């Protein structure tokens, strides 16, 4: 009988359509991904080229290596494992490079999984011949391909700059491996939450924790660094006696996360997260009665998440700053450098100032995120029912901007206060340090406001290009991290608002640039609101 010899039903069904979805993802990301990959490819090779010029011989490298034993720099960028050009390049760029590819992977994977699912686009593609695991697989394949491109370009670029091919490959693989791991982590996050925003937030939180654990590990308790994917990348030690087996840890973690993502995806319904839907209130609470309270309702979860993150961030780095003091007391070999830098307190201050600078950029990401909610609401069509009521456009926009601008100040204050408290507890002056570091952190606020202003201006004047505010933030981060090093023209560097902020604590406070930044932010915001009042809404 034919039924006995008929082939078993096809098992490959769960992956059907993966190829088509991968092609679709590549088509949709045809501009975005090359930009990420290009920036990730330029950074290491550019750094290596610049260092070759700056430090032409061993003597110059030894001299700078001495300075880099500075514990504050170790906490921020990791240790310099060897006084060679390759190790120096690794020290400078690897941590940033890993953060960059991790963000690329997270955004790519979430965009092609939960974002599409939340928007209901999966129902369209899912009704075609696509298997249950096809979207997740297509997203992971796309991210993996992007990371593979980064590996190839990084290794080639470094080798062409004259560094050893082995070390070049190690740095490239450390980068790409971490990128792949974060793609898998994003894959898990996309199964857990119903909203794409929350999935991205979850994966980025894991990235932030990795940085913190790595910093805490390099500042003292070394084992903490072994809990961090970012720590693994550095501990592969490119150009400094590569420990290839560390790659195995990254690969194993990526496999585990990938398996978890598939297991979760196989269990849940389309559109659902892991937590079941709970009914909410049948009537609105009395406070929910205007555009402002609606903004509060829509923005509060984001702000609360950021406050928790910033408290953890400030607390960890504040206590790391305390550890720097201890390290120096026991390390007599760097006494002269200590005096040069202004003593023990000077070192800790230099570290804290650098950390506060990074925090400024991080919090600017919140400012941009909260501001772009304006455009998000508009393009989702949720502005229309609001504007059909007597509530005015400007009132509505100000509700969200209050969170973008006020939230920025709150976050910097939280990061400064927790850092001050943690650092002060180690030096025996919690109250004084709390006030001092809160003040130092608040100085960054106007620079972050300028980026919120860029977002508002784009929203009002060029609404379809609102997302360029992220590009502006990325440019500021790049300029802060490697601008001077890569020889970016100084007028471009002058465009970053963060360059004008006095580096507190440890430098004199100058008020003029701060006031100017406030003025620039106000002008940009006003221009955006004026444009918004005059333009069509869509």
């Amino acid at each position, binding site marked *: 009988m034919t039924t006995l010899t008929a082939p078993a039903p096809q098992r490959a069904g769960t992956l059907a359509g993966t190829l088509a979805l991968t092609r679709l993802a590549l088509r949709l990301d045809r501009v975005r991904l090359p930009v990420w990959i290009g920036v990730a490819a330029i950074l290491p090779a550019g750094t290596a080229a610049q260092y070759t010029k700056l430090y032409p011989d061993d003597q110059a490298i030894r001299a700078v290596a001495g300075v880099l034993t500075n514990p504050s720099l170790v906490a921020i960028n990791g240790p310099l494992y060897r006084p060679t050009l390759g190790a120096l390049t690794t020290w400078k760029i690897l941590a940033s490079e890993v953060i960059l590819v991790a963000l690329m992977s997270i955004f790519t994977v979430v965009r092609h999984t939960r974002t599409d699912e939340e928007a209901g686009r999966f129902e369209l593609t899912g009704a075609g011949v696509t298997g249950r695991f096809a979207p997740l697989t297509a997203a992971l394949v796309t991210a993996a391909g992007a990371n593979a491109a980064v590996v190839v370009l990084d290794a080639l670029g470094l080798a062409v700059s004259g560094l050893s091919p082995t070390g070049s490959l190690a740095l490239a693989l450390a980068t790409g491996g971490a990128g792949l791991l974060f793609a898998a982590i994003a894959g898990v996050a996309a199964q857990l939450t119903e909203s794409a925003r929350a999935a991205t937030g979850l994966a980025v939180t894991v990235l932030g924790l990795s940085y913190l654990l790595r910093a805490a590990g390099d500042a003292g308790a070394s084992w903490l660094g072994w809990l961090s994917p970012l720590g693994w990348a550095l501990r592969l030690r490119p150009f400094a006696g590569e420990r290839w087996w560390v790659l195995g840890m990254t690969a194993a973690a990526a496999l585990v996360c990938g398996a978890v993502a598939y297991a979760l995806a196989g269990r849940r319904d389309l559109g659902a997260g892991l937590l079941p*839907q709970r009914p909410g*209130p049948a009537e*609105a*609470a009395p406070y929910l*009665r205007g555009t402002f309270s609606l903004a509060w309702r829509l923005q509060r979860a984001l702000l609360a998440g950021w406050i928790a993150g910033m408290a953890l961030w400030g607390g960890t780095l504040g206590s790391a700053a305390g550890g720097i003091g201890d390290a120096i007391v026991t390390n007599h070999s760097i006494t002269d450098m200590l005096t040069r830098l202004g003593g023990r307190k000077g070192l800790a201050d230099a570290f804290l100032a650098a950390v506060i600078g990074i925090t400024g950029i991080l919090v600017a990401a919140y400012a941009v995120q909260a501001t772009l909610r304006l455009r998000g609401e508009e393009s989702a069509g949720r502005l*229309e029912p609001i*504007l059909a009521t007597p509530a005015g456009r400007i009132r509505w926009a100000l509700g969200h901007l209050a969170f973008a601008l006020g939230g920025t100040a709150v976050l910097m204050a939280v990061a400064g206060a927790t850092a001050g408290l943690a650092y002060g507890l180690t030096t025996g002056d919690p109250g004084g340090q709390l006030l001092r570091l809160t003040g130092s952190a608040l100085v960054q606020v106007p620079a972050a406001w300028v980026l919120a202003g860029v977002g508002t201006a784009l929203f009002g004047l060029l609404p379809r290009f609102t997302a360029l505010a992220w590009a502006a933030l990325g440019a500021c981060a790049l300029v802060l991290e490697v601008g001077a090093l890569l020889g970016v023209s100084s007028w471009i560097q002058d465009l970053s608002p963060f360059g004008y902020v006095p580096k507190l604590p440890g430098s004199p406070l100058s008020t003029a640039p701060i006031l100017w930044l406030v003025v620039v932010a106000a002008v940009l915001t006003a221009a955006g609101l004026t444009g918004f009042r005059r333009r*069509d809404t869509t």
Partner: protein
Amino acid sequence: MNEVISVTGLVKTFGRARALDGLDLTVHTGEVHGFLGPNGAGKSTTIRILLGLLRADSGSALLFGGDPWHDTATLHRRLAYVPGDVTLWPNLTGGEVIDLLGRLRGGIDAKRRATLIERFDLDPAKKCRAYSKGNRQKVALVAALASDAELLILDEPTSGLDPLMEAMFRSCVAEIREDGRTVLLSSHILGEVEALCGRVSIIRAGRTVDTGTLDELRHLARTSIRAELAEPPRGLADLPGVHDTVVEGTRVAFDVDNTSLDVALKHITSFGVRSLTSSPPTLEELFLRHYADGEA
């Protein structure tokens, strides 16, 4: 002021595309006005201009005699709106959205809200992300119908509703009409238009092609005639206003413009009428004719 909405010569372009091309629309106080036209004709664009969401390029649009772009807040106190494509905040419940929109408009009548939720069989404790299209539409409808706005602007409000809810919607609008309030109803559902609308405006490609009461529109349309005559007719097809004439011996079938009905009937009676059936134009035919005009 007897005119709630008065639009003349409205033009709106998006880039090079001309969405509205000299559109006219007049809605009188207390009427339910049907706003009809094929997809992409410009109904939603007109409504968005009336709500001050879009700015017209030229022409005039008056709402309660005021300028919808400049007097937005004052005008919006007097109206309620149901968008064609309802999207809501995924993590708010339907009940919260109804209250919020009501309060933004200046307060909500709790009793009417409860009655409407009951009538539309809506679960207000559900998160909006869990609602189907029809249920999202019900949320927007309840929010609008619970208000005591003088004017309701409804953009294809029943496109996602089941027949039971559709009937409920009709009775709600009928009550509003009895209250003497005004409704602008953009719709494709002919039964709904016929049941609710006193006057209609039909637009096509951004222009108004017809406006009036349904009877007036029918008057301008054609009637189908079938007749059995005593002898084969002559010269019928040459009469003005007579179309699609088919003659089979003594049997004829033709369509005639209602303006020429009298002449055509006089003509065929001269051949001795044995039997005659006439069917008035259905609404479908009326619309199809307008919708398809110019496409051929």
